[in-house]
């Protein structure tokens, strides 16, 4: 069971209050009708699937119902960082990416 800090509720809650939405910081293409099939397919279907640090959006489904970002290690499941929406992806100390 993960214990996740919600930056809006400002408290640590159990994993089953949350829902993982998926990879964070995916920008919708500004001019979708100008994309090639290759680019559109990549935007729709291709996600980073790292064995290690992963940036994700989580939703506090049965809490404050806010979305926020989490940096989590997919191998150890350690949550390295939690930050609010609208903030650029920060770098986690000790890792270069």
């Amino acid at each position: 069971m993960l214990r996740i800090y919600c930056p809006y509720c400002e408290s640590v809650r159990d994993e089953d209050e949350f829902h993982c939405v998926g990879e964070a910081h995916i920008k919708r293409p500004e001019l979708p009708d100008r994309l090639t099939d290759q680019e559109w397919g990549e935007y729709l279907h291709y996600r980073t699937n790292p064995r290690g640090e992963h940036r994700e959006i989580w939703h506090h489904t049965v809490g404050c119902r806010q979305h926020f970002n989490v940096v989590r290690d997919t191998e150890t499941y350690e949550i390295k960082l939690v930050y609010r929406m609208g903030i650029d992806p920060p770098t986690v100390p000790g890792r270069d990416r």
Partner: protein
Amino acid sequence: MTQRYSFLQLIRQAFRHHEGWTPAWNSVEPKDEYDVVVVGGGGHGLATAYYLAKNHGLTNVAVLEKGWIGGGNTGRNTTIVRSNYLRDEAAHLYEFALKLWEGLSADLNFNVMFSQRGVLNLGHSLQDMRDIERRVNANRLNGIDGEVLSPADIQKIVPILDCSPGNRYPVLGASWQPRGGVARHDAVAWGFARAADRLGVDIVEHARVVEISLNLGSGAVEGVVVEHEGERKRIRSSKVACVTAGNSGVVAALAGLKLPIESRPLQALVSEPLKPCLDTVVMSSAVHGYLSQSDKGDLVIGAGTDGYNGYGQRGSFEIIEETARAICELFPVFSRVRMNRQWGGIVDICPDACPIIGRMPVPGLYFNCGWGTGGFKATPGSGFVFAHTVAEDKPHPLAAPFGVERFHSGAVIDEHGAAGVAH
């Protein structure tokens, strides 16, 4: 050369106190060059190697496995085999595999304990039942056996299932595929390993591929670098076929590629052994639980995937809780059964819940992955069509719709409706 298993051989060995049996496959050092290198020694990888040798005469083949044979997802699934998929492309592929299963023990000369005890997929709501009717009709049009059963019919097959109207998950009916069933998963890996070894394939365990070498000029595959017994060794091969399930994204990155796959843990658990009480497979996608009883007597229970990506070969506790809760509702008789073991396997999930089988943008590189939560049932068929794809350098007709190009052309095969979570 390994022995052929037969009744005569068994009698002969009995007189020698069973001291004359030889290992099922040989332990070998990798050679410097192969015609095809298969990365990943799970069921699908070993089946690929077997059919490369058997159907295409390619025996200069190596299977490189980072762990040991039977230690990955092949030995971690809930052993269910069925072919009742909705979409034509998927139905044809899985039905082809099911037909291979029916003759597999004789073909491999290894008892994979394939038992066609039937598979029930329960419906708990009106919409479930409409989907079941649609899927069974689609199956029958594709020549796949299937029936829609009423609660009374289900009760005759599984008397211990709670079909009473007061159930929290009311059972309104089910689809029934009598030809579905279970197989012994380790035996499938061992059987394919032994059969491939007999045909001359090199099976190298504890050999992790750390690099896929590409030609700087043409960009084509030249071979792999493998870490084996503490040393790095370069193996030349113009064809590299990767069958690495949950780690496919990691292996693809070695060749500079990205795949439309996300890796998640899928978990299963087994109970203490019980007297025979369940002689079929019961699945329910709506409540994320499926179970059967093994020949040892333990209940084999499959749960859902975790709600987030992960490579830790375990599952989150709340998923087990959810599944155990559903099983207890459906089978009140199991409410005091104790669980013995729990484990997770990393499954590679595609956006359309269908596999990727075929060539990659890098010449000489092939991938067979994305089987997600339901690859075990396809093992022989997957190996058969992938071997053809690799040997001929063009997709087998059954594998053609499953190329990675579909995520750019838009011709995805939406199997989520039929498969849901439970495979």
